[in-house]
């Protein structure tokens, strides 16, 4: 068999050499980096754990064992490395303590220079620097100037939320107004759960700024933001009798399903408000094509819980075609309507027994929880 030369697939030696050098260099670099970092981290971790334990002990001793913790003096005696390691320890305790202990502990922030550094980062730092700066100021309950917040903390929903959080955490008098403004000015995109929670917190005591802004800007919001504001509204316990809630009613006919779902639940707390109720076309609930929307409406009627709402709910449940929505209707009905199974319409029997059984278990679990809690 004659051999056939394979000249066509032979690489020039130079090309092979270049390839080998590139890959060889990359291998050496990655291996060196990996081993080096691993060794460094192992060494650092060992030292760090011991150091943090030591610092935490001293910090707690000064916090709880003395009237005057003398933060400045202590921090002044620490090395730069010790000060660096002290910050995560401080972060951890600031998140877990409350009341006078937390206020006393926050006194160490200025000694460590965290407050000033955070303000600097807020003005001229990167995104993560700004976010961490806002977080520190929140933990230290040290709200910066409002202008600083408005100018440098509204680039992203996360920054907006953290900026508003400082005001809430610091219990500033303008928490509701400025907080709502920081969060909702310029019609931002949707928030993270932290942002939604912050909107809820700043509005908890005084929902008027939120309702006023919603009434003014609601049409310009994205469906995602609409849904989030409606979600917050549902959880607000402070009912404002004179507030303009027409935007919620308007949302009941939103083309977006999830907005309608949220809108019905947002009205849970307004069953007493005859103005609102007259605007809600309860009879139209059954005509909504979305079972999720109908289920949400049933929950709203259940939350209203008066005779008229329960009557509507009973009618709606009887004609509900979606089995899952029917169960929700019955679950909403059950606490107000203790029929025996024999009295229940046949089409609701299965849902009724299911709801009754789960209500029984819920009560049982709650009973056990309540018996456990005093202990």
């Amino acid at each position, binding site marked *: *068999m*004659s*051999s*056939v*030369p*394979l000249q*066509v*697939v*032979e*690489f020039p030696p130079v090309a*092979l050499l270049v390839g*080998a050098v590139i*890959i*060889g260099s*990359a*291998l050496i670099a*990655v*291996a060196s*980096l*990996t*081993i080096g*970092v*691993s060794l460094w*981290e*192992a060494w650092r*971790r060992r030292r760090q754990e011991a150091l943090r334990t030591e610092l935490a002990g001293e910090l707690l001793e000064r916090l709880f064992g003395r009237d005057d913790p003398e933060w400045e003096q202590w921090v002044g005696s620490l090395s730069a490395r010790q000060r660096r390691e002290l910050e995560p320890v401080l972060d951890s305790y600031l*998140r877990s303590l409350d009341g006078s202990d937390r206020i006393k502990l926050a006194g160490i922030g200025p000694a460590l220079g965290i407050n000033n550094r955070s303000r600097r980062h807020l003005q001229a730092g990167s995104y*993560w620097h700004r*976010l*961490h700066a806002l*977080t520190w100021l*929140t*933990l230290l309950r040290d709200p910066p100037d409002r202008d600083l917040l408005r100018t440098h903390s509204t680039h992203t929903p*996360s920054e907006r*939320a*953290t900026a508003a*959080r400082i005001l809430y*955490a610091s219990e500033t008098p303008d928490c509701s107004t400025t907080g709502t403004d920081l969060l909702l000015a310029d019609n931002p995109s*949707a928030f*993270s*759960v*932290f942002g939604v*929670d*912050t909107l809820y917190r700043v509005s908890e005591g005084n929902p008027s700024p939120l309702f006023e802004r919603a009434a003014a800007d609601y049409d310009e919001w994205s469906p995602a933001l609409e849904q*989030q504001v409606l*979600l917050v509204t549902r*959880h607000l316990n402070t009912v404002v009798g004179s507030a303009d809630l027409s935007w919620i009613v308007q949302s009941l006919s939103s083309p977006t399903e999830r907005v309608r779902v949220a809108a019905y639940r947002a009205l849970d707390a307004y069953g007493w408000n005859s103005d609102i109720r007259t605007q809600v076309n309860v009879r139209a609930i059954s005509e909504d094509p979305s079972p*999720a929307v109908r289920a949400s409406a049933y929950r709203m009627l259940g939350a209203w819980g008066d005779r008229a709402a329960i009557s509507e709910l009973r009618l709606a449940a009887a004609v509900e075609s979606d*089995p*899952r929505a029917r*169960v929700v209707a019955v679950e909403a009905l059950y606490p107000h309507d203790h029929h025996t199974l024999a009295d229940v319409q046949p089409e609701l029997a*299965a849902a009724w*027994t*299911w709801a*009754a*059984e*789960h209500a029984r*278990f819920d009560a049982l*679990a709650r009973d*056990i929880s309540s018996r456990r809690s005093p202990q």
Partner: protein
Amino acid sequence: MIDLQALTVSLLVGTGFVIISYYIIINIYYLIVHVLALFELRDSTNESEWKPPFYPFGSPFYPGIAMVVPAYNEEASIVESVRSMLTLNYPDQEIVVVNDGSTDRTLEQLQKAFKLEAVAAPVPYDVPAKPIRGVYRSTRYEDLLVIDKENGGKSDALNAGVWLTEQKLFCAVDADTVIDRNALLQIVRPFLEDPEKAVASGGTIRVANDCTISDGEVTEVTLPKTGLAGLQVMEYLRAFYSGRLGLSRLKGLVLISGAFGIFRTDYVRAIGGYRHDTITEDLDLVVRLHKYLCDEEIEYTVDFIAEPVAWTEVPESFRVLGRQRRRWYRGMVETAVTNREMLFNRKYGRVGTVILPFFIAAEAFGPLIEGLGYILLPLAWYLGILSIEFFLAFFLLTTGFGVFLSWFGIASEVLSFNRYDDPRDILRLLWYGILENFGYRQWKTVVAWQGLLEYLRGENSWGVMERKGFGGGVDGGPDVDVDVDTDTNSAGSAPGEAGALASGAATAARVDTSGFIWVQNPIEREPAFGVIDGGVDGEGVGEGENEGEEDGESTDDGGFIWTSLPVTERTPADDTGFIWVSVPIAAVDEEDIQSDQVVRDDSNLEMTGDERLDDGGFIWTSLPITDTGLLSEEAPREAHEDRFRD
């Protein structure tokens, strides 16, 4: 003859060009994915380092998560698993255990441990699963629901759980996966950051072999002592910290491990839930989610979060690993074929036009082409057309690049979360990155070809494996249970490897030797039982420090299974013998105890079948060991049972 030779040579040369071209293209793809993974890892690390200044447990806005736990014959570990899940840190969590027609006492164990009572009402809506025999709720734990249904496989069980929960999200989790305490708080992050768009999120699966597990949590991370498990650690790091992170960066994650991933409940219901006729239901689910959301023109994200970690055991024998990888390969091909309309279809965006084609080209064709190369090379040498210099240069370059990609994954881990405290473990991992190129990688090409042949033959079994578990089974019973492997294929593997990585099952007991088999599992606070009847032939079956355990000697961390035949020769009918159990004998089904059985404790007290020991002993069984839950990996099972678990 000359013409035939010329034709052969031309074919070989042409094939060689195709292979080299393929190699270059695929490796460019891998390199891009790995580099993108670095950026994603940087962002992911930054995000995980920032903790918003609020208390999640006080917020009413955290989305509820249902942990859906399919369970089939998990009596040894299900109680511990559920207890472990009940302790996870998350503000709004429900546990939904689905007993998928277990033939052991899984349900009874749950009933006893959690004071379950039946919900005296049928489920009032349709559930796309095998008939539900009953729904149970705990009278102690408000958020624990147990569904008892007829056996239908893992997908079927997951569907039952998905349809019976009202939580916005559900987390598919294997009963024997150990989840970090804060993992739910971490894996849910995409749903917190972008609640409107997040649809699914997956976390990292890591290898638990030889790690220390205490109270359902991994407390000490060490590299497995055996090379095969160690190789898989390296593969997992490469797959998760490079492959999936890179694909996540490209907004093209097509795979979330079935062992640990969370999904929007409503969207999964909208696509009909998990498909029953697939053997890699996790890959199939994510691909179908992409398809559905693109079809509906819904903006969405499917994310991979590097830090939340779930731990699983990996196989420690080539036989078991081969079976696992063949299944993964078949599942990947099956999913690609089923969803072929997505390929090169602009309607499906980046996933359809770029990610899936490359994924399939790399993961499905890669090992096949590499395997082909191993055949063609000797042929070319025989025909005298192989340039040895060229071959060596090509081999060194490809191997070097493969090692580079593997080390990239290890470097990513070290630079980010750095869970391996001991730098010697990192050195070993780097060594495995080299070692895998000499034998292991070639073996995987054979496995891929076998997987392809099995797919073409229409084989759809899952195969059965033994898993030693993480210790401390119910009542301290031997924690050997039989399992089939989990999930998954992944991008980011070295060229030519299937890269099918994620959680898997492990073989714990040495089952290829006759006589007494030492089962190395912690058995807490159980009395010891002497080995009886026939003495111990421990030669070759003991492991480590437990080797040489003598009759009557107390043992608190394992037990013996006596088999009358070499396991490799056993059939179910032959699987008779004494089985040592530390669980109460009452825990064994009555029908499992034959009329001629003798149950003894270490004082040689003979008991009849209707008598009970309170705390364990040897059980004679003439039934296949499979029926006791201590399965041989060779024991055949019904296909629907085989397909149940990951």
